[in-house]
């Protein structure tokens, strides 16, 4: 190996990162305290068993054994819901998990059937909010993106994207705002067209080139597919063509391919 000093990379102190961790810890602490406050609020929904019996499982998932049954006519309190399972408490204090199919057959105090929200392909078309994670290739570099979307109607939605670009020669960040049009939003595999603008910041790697950090405006056009998977889950694949409006004489063009998953709510 050559002189060790040649491999020393100029350091940049990053005090902000530890500060970020501090903020994150504060947020978590608040969530913990918030949870304690919620626990104090003890008003629960009561339902009456209308099926011959209600089976209580020991856990919220496949395979957990039935350890108790509640007979028709008896009532139970619904303590909480996790995914498709409901934690119920009987009059004598037994707690167990009941699946959605059985909960559907219970009655509320007004005699109506137990109702709950269940995500379906209709929500895939009509849901207002959506968030997801995609990863792929951005002009030869790796890209990881997080996005949030708001739908004005089934056809038109607005999105905000934040991406981290990790390449061999440079790293960077990118933020984008774009509008998405879906011509057939009710299709299970729904094609979309998108147009947007944003901002890109690139930092060439100090080990390879002595370049300067650059921040440029970008515009993009693209298309792809939203594919309904199950429940509130969808897959997404897309292609975007970016134009980077550089301060040099020529603009740069970058092609991007990404796949990932998202869920709507």
């Amino acid at each position, binding site marked *: 190996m050559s002189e060790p000093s040649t491999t*020393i990379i*100029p*350091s940049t102190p990053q005090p902000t990162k530890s500060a970020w961790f501090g903020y994150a810890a504060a947020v978590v602490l608040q969530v913990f305290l918030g949870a304690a406050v919620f626990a104090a609020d003890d008003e629960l929904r009561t339902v009456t068993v209308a099926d011959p019996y209600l089976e209580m499982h020991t856990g919220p998932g496949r395979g957990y054994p039935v350890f108790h049954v509640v007979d028709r006519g008896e009532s139970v309190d619904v303590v909480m819901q996790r995914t498709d399972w409901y934690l119920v408490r009987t009059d004598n204090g037994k707690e167990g998990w009941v699946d959605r199919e059985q909960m559907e057959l219970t009655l509320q105090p007004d005699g109506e059937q137990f109702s709950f929200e269940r995500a379906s392909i209709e929500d895939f078309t009509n849901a207002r909010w959506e968030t997801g994670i995609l990863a792929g290739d951005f002009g030869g570099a790796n890209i990881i993106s997080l996005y949030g979307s708001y739908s004005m109607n089934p*056809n*038109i939605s607005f999105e905000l994207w934040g991406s981290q670009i*990790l390449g061999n020669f440079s790293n960077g960040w990118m933020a984008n705002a774009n509008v998405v049009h879906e*011509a057939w939003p009710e299709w299970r595999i729904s094609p979309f*067209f998108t147009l947007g603008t944003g901002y890109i910041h690139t930092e060439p790697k100090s080990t390879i080139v002595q370049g300067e950090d650059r921040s440029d405006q970008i515009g993009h056009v693209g298309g792809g597919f939203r594919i309904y998977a199950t429940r509130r889950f969808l897959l997404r694949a897309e292609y975007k063509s970016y134009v980077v409006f550089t301060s040099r004489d020529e603009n740069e063009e970058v092609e991007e391919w990404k796949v990932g*998953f998202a869920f709507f709510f």
Partner: protein
Amino acid sequence: MESRFRVLFLIVAMISLSGCAATKNLFGFDSREETSPTAEPPGQVIDPEVERREVKEPAIDREDFEVGAFAGIMSIEDFGSDLSYGLRLAYHITEGFFVETTAGYSRAGKTSFEILSGGAELISDSERDLYYYNLNLGYNILPGEVFLGEGRAYNTSLYLIAGLGSTTFAGDDRFTVNFGAGYRFLLTDSVALHLDFRDHLFDIDLLGEEKTAHNLEGHLGITVFF
């Protein structure tokens, strides 16, 4: 090749735009038909005055999110093993699948080269700080129960995770793939203990040649569902 993509792309764009022109509900001018309330049937004479019991049902507490912290040991390839700690946020989509994000910190020690050479440092002090974040998909592959003595049963789950992220280490942000397995032990229905083992893979060329570094991490954590 590139021009072929453009032609293909233009065709797709034209098709979707033609759909756009045809659609009436652009920008919220929605054509959702509202069914007008039908007039009372002519034969009805008696208006039944039944007082409907208006019951406002309390909302059911949904506990699909899981948040918590962890601490353990991370072995940074060539740089020794050190304490690591971080935060975790997860969302349970179904009883099997969940998405998870973790952010962690560890600090690299010295390579054997640095120790033997006596003072020559490969990276500066601040570059020894290692920060990572990951976005993962997880699956509860072996859910089950464990029994402590005769009277206590706890729900547990062995899960697998895999995902992508970035690691800031030795003066660079590095694209990171991570995968691993974990064990969730539910103390109550809302509080869980975790034991996790993960491998973080990223490319590094600090020691002369580019290689994929395996950075193993084992940690214990506690999470709360909300």
